[in-house]
Each structure stands twice: as C-alpha cells, then as structure tokens.
C-alpha cells in the first residue's frame, strides 16, 4: 500500500476550477516527480495534501496518507501530521523564515511542539539537524538570524525544519527554482541523501524537466489541472507517448535554426570594454569601521563585433548584471572605460549619451515588471523614440510602433491595449518590439527567457535568432542557463566573482570547460539529454 494515494481529486477556489480528477501516488522511499508549466495546479496539489488551502477552496475525491483520509481529517489531526509525518519545503527561501526569530528557535519549535521535548533537548536535536543539512555549528550557531544567511543556506534551514522529525513523506514545491545553478545541484543532492537515509517518500514539484528527470523515479505530467501522463521517468520521456509530453520535452531541448552568423564585414568593433571595475560599499559593522568594499566587477575587458551574438554566463552574484548595466550606461564604473561604436560613454553626461542610447536598448527578465501598467502599449513601445533627434509626429510614431509589433509577431491593433491584457510570452515580444523600434545596433538582454515556461521560451529564442538574421542586431545575452547560451549565441564569456574566467566559441567552452568555475557551472547545470541517458541505464 503506497504512502500517499490521491484518487480523482478535484479542486475549485471560489468558482475557478484548479484540479480535475487528479491521480497520484507516492510509495515509501520513492521519488515522484510532478511536472507542469505555471498555472498547471502542481502547487495546489501539494497544499491540498497538507490541507493548507485558502478559505474559498473546495476539494472532492480521496486523498489518503498512511491510511488516514486527509480531506476528512480534523484540523487537530492535521496539526499532528504536519511537521511530524509530512514535511514541506517551499520555493522562495528568502521569505520562508520568520525574520525576527533565530534559526535555532524555528527548527526547535517544531520538535518541541510535537514531542513535548524540553528546550535543551529540542535545541540539541535542532543542532544535530542543522549539521546534517550542511550548516556546521562553527559558522552557523543557533543564534543566527535568517537575514544573516544566503538564499541557499536559508533553504537548508527550511529543509532542516521539514525533516527534523524524520517525516514519512516530504513534499518539495520548486525547492531550487529561486537558487543559483551550483547551489541548486547541492540542495538536490542533500534532498536525495535525506530521502534515501530514512526511506522517506518525496513528492518533487518543478517546471524544470531536467531537474525532475535527474531526481525522480516516476514522473507525472500535469497540464491545466489534468494529468497528461504518468510512469517511469526514463521510459515516459524517451517514448513521449502523450503529445503534450513530447512538446514539453522537445521545447526543453530546442535549438533554434541559425543560418551563418550575419557577417557585416565592418572591421570597427561595436563595443569595447577595457579594465572596468565597480565596487559596492561594505556593510557598516561598527561606528566608524565598515566591512571592506565588495568588488562586483573586477578589471573586465571584452569586445563585440557588429551583429555578433555573445552570451555572458555565470552563477548569480558573479557581477554579470552589474556589467550589463554599465554597458547600457545606467551605472558608472569606478574605473576603466567603455567605448560604444568608437565613442567613450563612461564619462558623458545624460544629454551627450542620447546618440549612444539610440543604438543600444535593453530587454529585461520579468515580463510583468518591465512595463508601466498605467500606460497603453503604443506609448510604451514608442518610449525609446524619445532619444531621436527629430521627434516623429503622432502618425509617424503609430506607424513605427505598428511596424515593430508586426516584426515581433504581434497584431497592430494590440497598440491600444494595456500590458495586463497580454500573456507572459506576448509581453516579452512587446519588450523586444520596444528594443528594436529605434533600429539599435546592440540589444543587451538580461535573463530574457528565464521567467518563461519551457514551451514559450523556445518561441522567444526563435524570435531573437530571426531578428539577428534580418536586422543584424548584435546581442549580449546575460543568463545563468547554459542551454539558452548554447541555443542562441556564437561566443560565450564565463564570469566568476567579478572576473571573466574563460571566453571562446560557445560549443567549445560548454563541451569542455577549462577554468574551475566553468567546469563547476557546466557540471551543475541540469541537462535533459544527459539526465535521460543516465536514467535509461539505471532503469534498463
């Protein structure tokens, strides 16, 4: 009899349907992967199991855990289960811990609550648990506060809380999505060890097919609240019986068709960056003493030719975004110069920067945050025209916007709509339309697709490739996702702790990295091909 059995579970919140006849089961010691795009209802499945649903939620069907009917259980029964027999780990480590309580208190609290242990005893067990999750007492005493820890370290504390009482079932809802690639690998290893050590059942929820393939024995594909397919991980993903599974798998491995890179023959380099450094003041630790400055970008030099497509990869916090902002003249370096199309831009005032700005535009990560919700698309996409010498008339402006919308595959009539009337993918297209309206020579894209679902991501990458061909726009892609770099760029620069540690042809660097940092990055980055191959050997 498996540990967790969910049969034809249907869930509605208010009057919107979330789940329809969901089937799912997790056996002791088994890792069940639950995969689906945003809005597929995967998190709601977990919350139903934990009975942590909002007031307006109505669930029907059967959810039984270890023989107990969850849907019919009383709140007190659920309180006894939660934290003791069922542990849960959440997506956002930065806000998952109570900022005003020490990590020791928050781990010990669950123990004392369930086992009525004394304070000293609970703290002793909390100490052991923190060591177990890789937070040694030397550096991480019980008295530390959450804000003194990094994202990865906080996720370890959350895991310690969830597993403190050796639960039978552990539910992990997107545990590593918000983390850096290298840290993600470490957290996944920790989860795998904990599950194996006490034969826990693990329900791993993620939108990243590669991560689930590496971890899960069996897999369930979810789309709009309905189960598309379920079965052995390797077999399901290699046979791809269900069309949605096939579409999902192929989108994850999609590489846009790119003709020969658009050679312009113009000898002059488009962008030259020489010896650029940027410091941030350290935190003040005493009245007049301040922690030493943090060097975000350390003596970086690089060059880009017109029409070239370059990727800037590295772990989060390695300084790639800071460098991008300085190139876009939105931030000033402490030292070093940046020349764009022969003009140095690091010493110019805002007015003198206008010509340079005309030829370089940004594309941002968060489709919801990169547009002012109070204005219509026409005004938003036309915003960069502000930089032109001769301001176009209203009619000319509308014509240029229409043209840009058409180039990114959107309809002219969308000009009079508000941003919130578009999906995430469409908004990213609007973002690109805004970037290309002034026919710039360089587009700096900071994590352009990392917030998108797999299937939409592929379309956007195609769009970038197409525009590079047609308009000869050079790209500087900032990303932590090697598959994106591999898919869309010719050159790659690997950054680590503010320095560029390796550069070269994308395929060469990513297939056999030389520098330590590049090696760690490539090893840690989840790759669906590799994961399926390895899973095939194990499951024969």
């Amino acid at each position, binding site marked *: 009899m498996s540990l967790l059995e969910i049969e034809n579970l249907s869930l509605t919140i208010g009057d919107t349907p979330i789940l329809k006849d969901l089937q799912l089961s997790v056996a002791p010691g088994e890792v069940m992967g639950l995969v689906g795009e945003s809005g597929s209802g995967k998190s709601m499945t977990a919350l139903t199991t934990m009975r942590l649903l909002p007031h307006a939620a109505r669930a029907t069907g059967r959810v039984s855990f270890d023989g107990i009917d969850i849907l019919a259980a009383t709140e007190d029964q659920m309180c006894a289960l939660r934290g003791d027999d069922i542990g849960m780990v959440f997506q956002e480590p930065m806000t998952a811990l109570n900022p005003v309580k020490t990590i020791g208190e928050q781990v010990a609290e669950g123990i004392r609550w369930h086992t009525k242990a004394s304070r000293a005893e609970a703290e002793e067990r909390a100490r052991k648990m923190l060591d177990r999750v890789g937070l040694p007492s030397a550096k991480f005493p019980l008295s530390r506060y959450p804000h003194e820890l990094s994202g990865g370290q906080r996720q370890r504390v959350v895991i310690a809380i969830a597993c403190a009482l050796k639960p039978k079932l552990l539910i992990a809802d997107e545990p590593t999505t918000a983390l850096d690639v290298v840290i993600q690998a470490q957290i996944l290893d920790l989860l795998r060890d904990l599950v194996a050590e006490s034969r826990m059942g693990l329900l791993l929820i993620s939108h990243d097919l590669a991560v689930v393939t590496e971890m899960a024995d069996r897999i369930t594909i979810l789309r709009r609240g309905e189960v598309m397919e379920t079965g052995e991980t390797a077999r399901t993903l290699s046979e791809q019986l269900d069309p949605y599974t096939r579409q999902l798998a192929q989108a994850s491995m999609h590489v846009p068709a790119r003709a020969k890179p658009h050679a312009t023959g113009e000898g002059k380099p488009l962008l030259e960056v020489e010896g650029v450094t940027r410091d941030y003041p350290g935190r003040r630790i005493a009245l007049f003493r301040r922690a030493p400055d943090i060097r975000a970008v350390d003596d970086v030099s690089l060059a880009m030719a017109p029409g070239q497509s370059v990727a800037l990869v590295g772990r989060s916090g390695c300084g790639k975004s800071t460098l991008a*902002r300085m190139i*876009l003249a*939105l931030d000033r370096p402490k030292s070093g110069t940046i020349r764009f199309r022969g003009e140095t831009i690091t010493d110019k005032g*805002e007015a003198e*920067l*206008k010509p340079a*700005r005309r030829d*370089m*535009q*940004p594309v*941002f*990560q*968060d489709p919801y*945050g*990169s*547009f*002012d*919700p*109070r*204005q219509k698309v026409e005004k*938003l996409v036309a*915003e*960069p025209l*502000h*930089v032109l010498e001769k301001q176009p008339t209203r009619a000319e402006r509308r014509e240029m916007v229409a043209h840009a919308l058409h180039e990114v595959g959107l309809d002219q009539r969308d000009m009079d709509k*508000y941003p*919130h*009337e578009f999906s995430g993918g469409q908004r990213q297209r609007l973002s690109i339309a*805004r970037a290309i309206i002034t026919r710039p020579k360089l587009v700096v894209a900071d994590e352009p697709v990392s917030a998108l679902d797999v299937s939409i991501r592929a379309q956007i990458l195609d769009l970038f490739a197409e525009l590079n061909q047609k308009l000869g726009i050079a790209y500087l892609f900032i990303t932590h996702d090697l598959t994106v770099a591999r898919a869309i760029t010719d050159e790659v620069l690997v950054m680590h702790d503010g320095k560029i540690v390796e550069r070269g042809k994308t395929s060469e660097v990513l297939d056999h990295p030389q520098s330590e940092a590049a090696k760690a990055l490539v090893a840690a980055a989840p790759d669906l091909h590799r994961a399926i191959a390895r899973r095939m050997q194990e499951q024969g």
Partner: protein
Amino acid sequence: MTMHIDIPEETLSSILAKAFRNTAFVAGFVITVLILAMAVISYVWTPYDVTRLVISDKTQGPSLAHWFGTDHFGRDILSMIMVGARNSIAVAFVAVGIGMGVGVPLGAFAAARGGLVDEALMRINDLVFAFPALLSAIMITAIFGPGAVNAIIAIGIFNIPVFARVARAGALAIWPREFILAARAAGKSSTQISIEHVLPNIATLLLVQGTIQFALGILAEAGLSYLGLGAQPPMPSWGRMLFDAQTRMVAAPWMAIFPGMAIVITVLGLNLLGDGIADILDPKSRRQR
C-alpha cells in the same frame, strides 16, 4: 519604511464593476456626495437665512418649522449645518490641496534624488512632525488672527509632511522596478520619469491618503472653530455650533446633537470612501494611517 505595491491589473470597466459591489466604497461615495450636494445647495437656497437673528424664537426644539430646531439666536440649525458644511469642506479640501500640492512633489523629488536631498527632506519632515499639530495651529491662528483662511494654512502646513512621507515611500517602491530602468535607457531624465511613470503609479495611494487627510481636516477645523479660531461669525461653522451648544446642553440638547452628527457622518463617509478606493484599486498596498 518600504511600501509593498502590487500594481493592479484591471481595465477601467472591471474596476467600476468591482467598485459598486464594494460596500465601503458605495456607502462612502453616497454620504460624501450627499454632504457635497448639501454644501453646494446652501449657496443657492437654505430653509432660513442664517444671517437673520430672530431672538424671539430662541432655542426652540425640532419642529415642522425647524427640523433640527433653532439655536440661541433663533437661527435654523439645519440651515446653519448646510452653510457650515460649505465652510468645513472648503477648509479641509484646500488644506489637503496644500498638503498634496507641496508634499507630493517634495516626496517624489526626494525619492528620485536620494542621498543628501532625501536626508534633508526627511529631517525637515521630522521637524514639522515634532511640533504638536493642534497647538501649532492655535499659535498660527493666534498670531495671524482667527478666520477660515488662517485655519486652512494652519491645517494645510501639517498635511505637507504626511503627503511627503507617503509620496516618498510610494516612489521608493516604484524606482527599482524594471520599467523605470527601461525609461532611463530611453534617455528620460529623473523628473520626466517621476511625472510619467512614478506619479501615476502612486496616484491610488495618494488618493486614499487624501481622503483620510480630508476627514482629519474636517475634525481639525471643528476643533479649531470650537476654540473660536476657525471661521468667524456670521459665517456658521460646525465646531462653533458645538461650542455654543455646550452651555445649553441640558436645556437644548438638539443644539449639540445635530452638528455633532454632521461631523461624524461626513468624516465617516470620507473614511469609508478611502477604504473603498484602497480595497478596489490597490488591495495589497498598506495604507498609511
């Protein structure tokens, strides 16, 4: 104090639909419109002329002739409440205008500029907040003489730091957003960005704070005119009516009850309106109290 602003994603029509289902908004809207109508009508018509003193029918109880009864000079209390409404609303409205007109640009500018300018503005804000509002209003009206205009200035001054603080907090939550970076990349200056992008996004917050300060303005004006420092006779004011009613509470309770109710209902209406707007337009924003 950082402000969590999750910008709403609705079209105008959906907002209006939601508005008329929100009880607080509807109640507040109806009350405020009624009071405004009463004040406007009073310019054209009131049951009796508030300037005529008819000592003969002094302190009469509510009757068919005088719905709310008469005061110690025989004037009709309903008419005086109508004209008094004009005075209270005018004082509170202009005071909020001053507060917003001066406070919001200051706050937005401080948030945009940051650094020393921000620090300086905050210190001035602390200074003005340090002065007890009512006491300073009394000093101002004592120096420049009582009267509606001085009451407006006295109340207005203390609205400025409130709006400066709200505008600054709101703007600080908007500046790090990515669409601001995009605007900077389009070469727009910080003032252009403040006007085009920042202000529209904190408009709801300011509107809500505006209704609250409007309500507090009504109370402050009543307080000042209770002490005899607000609008001077023959212009009636609610606070003054309460003061006159005090010595005649036992013999003529209606003289205190009706003006008191007028103040309560107006302030209640404005606060409900503020709550309603906040719930509809900016559900998650934490309103400054």
